[in-house]
């Protein structure tokens, strides 16, 4: 194993990690806002990938251009899921936590079933997109362009999210609702609106990730499951509900995955992630940046 191989895989791991962060951040945002885990998060990602695929196949819109459209579509989906499903699940008179879990878990199964019904179980891909399959070479290290682009989008998205949360009135309303949803009406804020926009924002972020994933990953109804699992680990690593913990958690997951792949056979590349996850759970259960 040469130094070059190590640097090469750490660099790819870093890029992938940033993308993992982008996939996970919507989950963290929604959990932080209202203590609800969206078990359909992977299916949100799947749908974003299909949106990108169809826009490419039928309208020849490159994923680079359709990414904002996928984000917009998933914004609408996220807000609708809150307003039509989660809002009612939260009104349960008993076992609210369970009702929420089954509501979003059920949604995941329905979305997967509908995808199989309408899109079939076939593996799809977006061939010959502008970035697909291309690499750039930096000082002898080859970086795949889709992942590089994804990493840049992830950094930009986190930067934008940071400014949005810390510099805008709506961001402040989001923070206030997260602190005490029962108190925001005292200053005239409608918590349902904040929740709906929070879900929309969470959807838009995973929508962005899905558009990028579509350029280098197969698209099929179950594609969300494995990425959702990684997203849960990312969120738990970073600290449940911490938006910027998801960023750091994503990077850790990406690097650990790349390192594991260097040492163990490729089929075991996920082992490292879950080992680190267990370690964090034992040593620092609130995650790296959690405040619980």
């Amino acid at each position, binding site marked *: 194993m040469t130094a070059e191989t190590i640097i090469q895989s750490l660099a790819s791991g870093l890029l992938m990690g940033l993308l993992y962060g982008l996939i996970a951040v919507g989950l963290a945002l929604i959990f932080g806002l209202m203590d609800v885990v969206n078990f359909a998060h992977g299916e949100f990602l799947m749908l974003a990938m299909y949106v990108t695929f169809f826009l490419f196949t039928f309208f020849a819109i490159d994923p680079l251009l359709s990414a904002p459209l996928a984000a917009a579509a998933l914004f609408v989906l996220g807000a609708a899921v809150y307003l039509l499903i989660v809002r009612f699940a939260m009104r349960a008179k008993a076992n609210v936590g369970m009702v929420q879990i089954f509501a979003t878990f059920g949604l995941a199964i329905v979305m997967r079933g509908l995808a199989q019904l309408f899109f079939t179980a076939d593996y799809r891909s977006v061939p010959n997109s502008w970035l697909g399959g291309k690499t750039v070479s930096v000082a002898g290290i080859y970086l795949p362009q889709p992942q590089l682009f994804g990493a840049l989008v992830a950094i930009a998205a986190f930067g934008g999210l940071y400014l949005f949360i810390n510099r805008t009135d709506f961001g402040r309303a989001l923070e*206030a609702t997260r602190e*005490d949803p029962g108190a925001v009406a*005292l200053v005239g804020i409608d918590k349902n609106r904040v929740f709906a926009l929070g879900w929309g924002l969470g959807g838009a972020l995973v929508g962005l990730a899905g558009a990028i994933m579509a350029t280098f990953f197969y698209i099929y109804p179950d594609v969300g499951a494995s990425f959702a699992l990684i997203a849960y680990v990312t969120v738990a690593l970073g600290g449940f509900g911490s938006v910027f913990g998801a960023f750091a958690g994503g990077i850790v997951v990406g690097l650990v995955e790349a390192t594991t792949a260097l040492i163990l056979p490729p089929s075991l590349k996920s082992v490292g992630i879950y080992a680190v996850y267990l370690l964090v759970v034992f040593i620092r259960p609130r995650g790296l940046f959690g405040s619980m």
Partner: protein
Amino acid sequence: MLSVREVTTAYQGLVAISAVSIEVQKGEIVCVAGANGAGKSTLLKSIAGAERPRAGSVTFDGKRLDGLAQHHITATGIAYVPENRRLFPRLSVRDNLRLGSYLYRGEANREGPLDLVFQLFPRLSERLEQRAETLSGGEQQMLAIGRALMTRPRLLMLDEPSQGIMPKLVDEIFQAVKRIRDAGMTVLIVEQRMAECLEIADRAYILQTGRVLMQGPSAEIKGNPDVRKAYLGL
């Protein structure tokens, strides 16, 4: 200005206030006094929309409020400071105040009432960057009132502002209430400390087990022999 007519509110079948009627005129300070559990807090919650009355009506400047969502009621010009204050504990004093002006976020002069808030409670201006949870009880009450003032209310409703506060600050807060009225607002205040409350109020209601027991100008209530014996310990 505010007219509460025959309002009944119940929690899970338990009636907390029963057919309570009160009136508040513009520019008044009205005190609602009574023992623990008399239904004072429930009355304010029913007006603010935090609880939905089972019967009766609440009218504010001719507009029916009962049944409106709480955030809409805030927007009509009623600011409510609940008993437990409900600040945003991990946000700074500045952010808490700024959230108070959320309804005016499009306006250039959205933080207009800030001058009044700092005049009333100068110590808030020294703690702007501190998290709300690090303030003392009295300062948290000041911040809660300050945040309420930022919503530019015509009617300010305070639930037990003296609770959990050292005596020196209690006086400061009651003095602030008078100055808030002088600044053109109307105040409805709920208190267990009847003596102090009657001192600043124009009129008062006494609630007992969910009903209005007595009402009238403060001086009259203060002079009532039953009140002096039962509530003022004289």
